[in-house]
């Protein structure tokens, strides 16, 4: 092997390590920032064909849960959301880039944890919210988003960041 080529075997792992160290440090910043964002304006159909806009949920405390029928983790998260619903936590579903029939079937098959579910087929509201994927959960307090959690919401995360609001 040529003497210079061999450094590739060191450079490739090093660059991968640096890349992931950067990704982890970034994701750490993201997780620890307390949010204070206004809910963006929107007007979208819900899965049961009603219209919903930001004004309808501008007062009170809600969870907004981003989900989709194609999302496997949402299926894992589902029992916990049902628990929350049974404890009286109002959850608004944001059905993200999903086929409407599939979404409706999913809710019928597994029981819906949501008060209503917004059908955001083109992901416009999700884009304004800064959604990175499903599942994601936002906490909305009087029209202001104060918490955000990426990934499956579970009892630990709930106690740590969300429970104090309810």
């Amino acid at each position, binding site marked *: 092997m040529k003497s210079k080529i*061999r450094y590739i*075997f060191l450079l490739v*792992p090093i660059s991968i390590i640096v890349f*992931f*160290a950067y990704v*982890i440090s970034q*994701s750490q910043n993201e997780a620890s920032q307390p949010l204070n964002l206004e809910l963006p304006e929107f007007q979208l159909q819900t899965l049961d064909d009603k219209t919903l806009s930001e004004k309808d949920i501008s007062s009170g405390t809600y969870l907004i849960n981003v989900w989709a029928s194609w999302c496997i983790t949402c299926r894992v998260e589902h029992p916990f959301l049902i628990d929350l619903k049974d404890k009286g936590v109002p959850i608004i579903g944001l059905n993200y880039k999903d086929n409407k029939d599939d979404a409706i079937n999913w809710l019928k098959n597994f029981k819906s944890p949501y008060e209503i579910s917004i059908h955001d087929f083109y992901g416009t509201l999700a884009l304004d919210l800064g959604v990175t994927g499903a599942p994601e959960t936002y906490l909305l307090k009087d029209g202001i988003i104060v918490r955000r959690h*990426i990934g*499956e919401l579970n009892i630990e995360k709930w106690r740590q960041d969300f429970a104090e609001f309810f």
Partner: protein
Amino acid sequence: MIPEISHLLTILAAGLFLFSFLVILSSNALSSNDSIIRLSLNCFNAATIFLISAFILYVYLAVMDDFSVKYIAMHSNSDLPIFYKISSIWSSHEGSMFLWILFLSIWLWLFVNRLDTQSNLFRYVIFFSAMVLLFFLLFLLVTSSPFERILPLAPINGGDINPVLQDPALVIHPPMLYLGYVGFAVPFVYICAYLADGEFRQGWETIIQKWSLYAWAFLTLGIGLGSWWAYYELGWGGYWFWDPVENVALMPWLAATAFTHSIHASTKSGVLKSWTLFLGLSVFILSLFGAFIVRSGIIDSVHSFANDPQRGLTLLLITGVIALISFGLFSFRSTKIVNSRLVVSGSKESFLSLNNILMITSVFSVFLGVIYPLITQYFYSTKVSIGPPYYNTIFAPLIFIAACFIALSVESKWQRKWKVTETLSKLGIPILISCFLTFIVQSLHQYSVSLIQMIGLFSGIFIISIYAFKLLMNSVNREFINWSSAVSHLGFGLLLFSIAGNSIFSYEKNLKLNVNEEYISEELEISFDDLSLQDESNHQRIIAQINMKIHDKVISFSPEKRKYFTRGQVTSETDIEATFLRDIYINIGEQLDDGSWTFRVQFNYLIKWIWFSVLLMILGILIRSRAMV
């Protein structure tokens, strides 16, 4: 008290691995002092025994419902059957890491004790084994201890595991997968030792070949079981979702497949040695990378454990150090490795080396699919998702080329140039058969089969027919056949065939029916005959009675919905009618306002064949490892 004993034994094990490591480090590398090596080996053995005892005690705690242990309280429940109590140990991060390390130590312990202590490499093998184990034990004890307790007041009952995860396939899926991942630690430490020693004696491949084959078998079985669970329990009729965590399991699998081929070429004809060393190191590093991705929480998936960036950073550091040490050794020492022969173009070795390049290309493609969303997210602040279309498009041509190489390497000979006309004449019939059958399927399906599906179908049939032809020649005129290669490649061909066939033929129907209502179409009649309610101890059942008439055969189904009282969770129990060619799935949905019910009927073709072909591949490998002493 018992949790503390288990904890203490684990700490002692870490201490003994450290001691074993230090003993070798401090000894003079030039004099192979027998007593020093003995001492180090004894420490290593004692450490492993301590670790095994610690784990057995932990299993005992889980079985006895000791909810004063925080981890058990969070993931188990006294109502669970005993095997779910045990499997709750690996249902989350801390416990599964414990199991992972246990398997790692058992593999290395078995390997170390089978090596010749007089061998020059022995000290290095102990050194690297103890080092890897020490790193991970420290990680377990410092950042993810499963031994934490809730004192003085332990909860009366535990938090239970998610019902989706309460499945027999999931009880054995993680252990099999881990046995595969960490099994590749054996070739890894041996290759590191070989490179560190620097004398490069011949014959090193045979020592690790069998171990690698066993590890490959476990890894394949583990991945297969995971896919089986996804099909039965998630119940969407899918078997592979290109989920990030499936992908990080696929990367070591692809590298391991290349490794087992490459090591075969090295043993047989003394070529591709650098390739084999490189691949052997890569498989284990990719396994570690997989553990890092799953446990750091940077990618969300059904498999990820609770997000903890700090833990991720530590794992990255460990993986990074191990990768740099091993690849560093490789890049500075492998210049001295001399192949005993050159690769003759058109020989079996030449096709195997092309196979290595192809496999590394596919590992890289999967790797890119996994990290590309992260790159765009953190460097361009846009979110992209990489899904099945990307992987299908990338893999179809790669698989087609792989099929061609398999064909050529089967018909070529070791160390001899191929005779083009002879090879092609042998391949003529399989090519004709596969073109013909692909065309038949295409015409049966009104020419709606996509190019990617056709490539898959053609490659599958091509590989199957080559080996079928070989088997025929073997039974007719006793021509030589390599049984293990034939069985595992038949498995691979069948896998491609069933994946393509499944995607071509499967379809589903969504129905809305009232009791006593019928649905009639050209090919089938479905009648909804009855609906009954039953109360069970912990849940309520709604059972639908469905009769389906298809091809003059009447099949009855009774899909259910269950509502569990404690968690309020509603689950659907699918009813499946499985035949040789296909599975018929019926899933009951919700009652609509007009009193009718929704049903989902799926026809999944060749789905069982997928897992059968995985078993065939494993069988082929086991035949090979049985043949080696």
